[in-house]
């Protein structure tokens, strides 16, 4: 058998035909990046390639990196490989990467979700021979509700807090989840305040045309009492911090797929947990895998062992791929992955 299109090395997924890596975790010469989250887009590579929608945020996070951009669906020849990027529906600019070598097609999913969120480019299934899929939520207990329902829950919570004179603090990862939530909020309820980490990302995304509601950046000068009924969007690290307490009586919410589990919800010490994720749920993963028509499946990032066993039982050629995205173990996540 010929060399596989992609192999796992100690630096990451490697394509020998094109001499490049996909989302490598140690510095390499040429890195193709699925999306700008820290466990996928790491600093220190000599050349980067990502979608044009991904590059501004990546520059914002990694500084002055050298690299090219590519449009969704555009093909590019690298050595003996042909690559193209396809929407993954995870966060704005995120992509699955398709690699074709001598007629053999592999797709690296990066992180993805199948439900369109109205903000980032909707997920597109890509036919392939081998599919390397994440499975962060690869357990049958994860079943997302349509985001309109979650949006209604969040807005109802906000409105109730506003009526009772409490400020709402919604904790969400600053790239992706924060903007998705902003997009779902009903600005008629009250002013929306943002933590600097969120607002800096907002600024980058607005500049590339993303439609977000008006927000007020929280600065040291901001009169914290001047915005009754406000909702604050901030990274999870601020929960329980002095920064948060200065806003007066608060109700806290945490938005993540992990909030599906009551144990995690209670541990998070937020008043409310909203179940909303930028990853596919159990049904979404199975649907996505089916749509690729792939003969071989490689599972990374999540409940890999359990999910792989299930796929094998359903007749798939499935394998665990021990990458360094998140953690290599199946049960890693709820307390380490804020991005989910």
């Amino acid at each position, binding site marked *: 058998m010929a060399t596989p299109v992609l192999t796992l090395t100690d630096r990451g997924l490697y394509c020998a035909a094109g001499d490049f890596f996909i989302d490598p975790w140690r510095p390499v010469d040429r890195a193709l990046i699925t999306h700008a989250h820290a466990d996928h887009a790491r600093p220190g590579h000599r050349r980067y390639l990502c979608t044009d929608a991904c590059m501004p945020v990546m520059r914002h996070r990694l500084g002055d990196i050298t690299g090219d951009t590519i449009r969704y669906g555009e093909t590019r020849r690298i050595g003996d490989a042909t690559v193209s990027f396809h929407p993954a529906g995870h966060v704005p600019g995120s992509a699955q990467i398709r690699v074709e070598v001598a007629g053999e097609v592999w797709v690296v999913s990066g992180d993805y979700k199948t439900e369109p969120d109205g903000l980032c480019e909707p997920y597109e299934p890509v036919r392939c021979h081998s599919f390397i899929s994440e499975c962060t939520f690869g*357990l*049958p*207990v*994860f*079943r997302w509700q349509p985001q309109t329902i979650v949006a209604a829950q969040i807005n109802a919570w906000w409105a109730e807090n506003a009526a009772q004179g409490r400020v709402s603090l919604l904790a969400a990862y600053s790239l992706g989840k924060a903007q998705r939530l902003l997009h779902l909020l009903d600005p008629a309820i009250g002013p929306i305040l943002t933590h600097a980490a969120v607002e800096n990302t907002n600024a980058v995304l607005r500049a590339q045309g993303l439609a977000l509601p008006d927000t007020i950046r929280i600065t040291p000068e901001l009169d914290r009492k001047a915005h009754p009924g406000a909702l604050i969007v901030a990274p999870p690290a601020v929960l329980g911090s002095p920064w948060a307490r200065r806003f007066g009586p608060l109700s806290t919410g945490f938005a993540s797929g992990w909030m*599906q*589990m*009551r*144990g*995690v*919800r*209670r*541990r998070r*010490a937020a*008043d*409310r947990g909203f179940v909303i994720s930028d990853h596919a749920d159990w049904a979404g993963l199975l649907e996505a895998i089916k749509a690729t028509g792939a003969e071989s499946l490689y599972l990374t990032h999540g*409940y890999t062992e*359990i999910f792989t*066993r*299930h796929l094998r*039982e359903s007749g798939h050629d499935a394998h665990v791929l021990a990458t360094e995205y998140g*953690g290599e*173990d199946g*049960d*890693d996540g*709820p*307390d*380490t992955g804020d991005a989910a």
Partner: protein
Amino acid sequence: MKRFAALFTVIDQTTRTSAKVAALADYFATAPDEDKLWTIAIFSGRRPKRAVTTTRLRDWAAEAAGISLWLFEDAYAVVGDLAETIALVLPPATGSADDSLSFWINHLRDLGDSDDEARKVAVLAAWDRLDTTERLVFNKLLTGGFRMGVSQKLMTRALAQATGQPEAELAHRLMGNWSPDTTSFATLIEADDPAADLSRPYPFCLAHGIDDLDALGPVTDWQAEWKWDGIRAQVIARGGALHVWSRGEELMTDRFPELARLAGDLPGGTVLDGELVAWDGTAPLPFAALQKRITRKTVPKKLLAETPVILLAYDLLEAGGADLRATPLQDRRTAMDRMLASLPPDAPLRPSPLIAATDWDSLRAQRGTARQMKAEGLMIKRLSSPYQVGRKRGDWWKWKLDPLTVDAVMIYAQAGHGRRANLFTDFTFAVWQGNDLVPFTKAYSGLTDAEFGQITRWVRQNTLQRFGPVRQVTPHHVFEIAFEGIQESPRHKSGIALRFPRMLRWRQDKTVDQADTLDHLREMLAQYG
């Protein structure tokens, strides 16, 4: 069920006690009496009998979800709660139901009389008519483990708000031998005669821990006793019958047949508070001896002879049928001593001795001898104090000995349940015997959530081997294990068993070779066992 599920949701969504009480009070003000009664029963540990085994529930849930049983079990291991796992894996309901909590409980109880197939049909039909939260509640009722962050005390406070009755009186009404089958909401909560039930105990007065005695004022205002390591109990002699209640409101009369004679020894209308201990004739036996008795509902003669149980009484709550709880402690004690002085010498009851002291320093010195006395420390009680309901700060203090400690190496880890699902919290520890690490105890508590998070990440990266849910890890981390007592135990590989082991500190400053040895534990056994 919708009303109860909504209550569950509100309580589950807040960490604020005041919000929980408000939601409960609102529920008590609006729900039908029968539902209120069941709600009180559930929150005071009186659950409906389990009608279906959890094994069957797992089978049915996996089948209904269209997944293999192993996948269901793996999901359960991650979620850490069976009722919740079932609620989550099931496909969305196709119908809905507007029936009351009592309806569902009665429905569940009817299942107990039907055959397995009929139970399955009924449970699947129920699941298909309930939303995720209702299913969770329903499954909790089915499996019998209902814990949702509401203590009996909190529930009683809410009930007091809703009914306008004093909390202490309600607490008393809710004690003892009732179930929704034997009473009604009106009888239990609103009827005139709360003491109608001859077996009904009083709410226990509980103590807070204390370290610093200087704030307590003159020692002459206080009474000191040994703090025994037994089972807190009320012994009730009324109407010629005897009842023994544990602090967990379990009726234990039948487990201690040697106490039955007290029905005749004690005057009618007597309630004593004290500690049940296994007794060797002069001093308490180790708790392990008593443990053998607790687990038996009927007691073999041999065991009864080897480990006879007595009550070390320290308070008199009722005499001649009169409630003495408002009387000052010193008067209650005097009355108790007078009553017990007239008991036959072989009665399984004696007063817990008072410890005389002229100053705090002499008490401090006496506390140091607690282990020799087979006690855990001292109880300090205000002489003028009434017998309070529950844990009130100010009058009763427990002044425990510092725990014994040993530095041990973590060798196995297992994930917890409920709030600790998905987090490695249950560890097995070892000490050195030559070049080998010998496991000697497990411990589950003592670390912060952040520390558990940190150790969880470490366990995942340092697993050597898996035995089902248990992971053997690289011997690397040293923990200071605290415990209250140490005993010989032929059942354990190390030959010792600890009482109340927990993690006192994560000794990141120590390496494994600095952990203690089994010989060191044996020396402790010789000294304190």
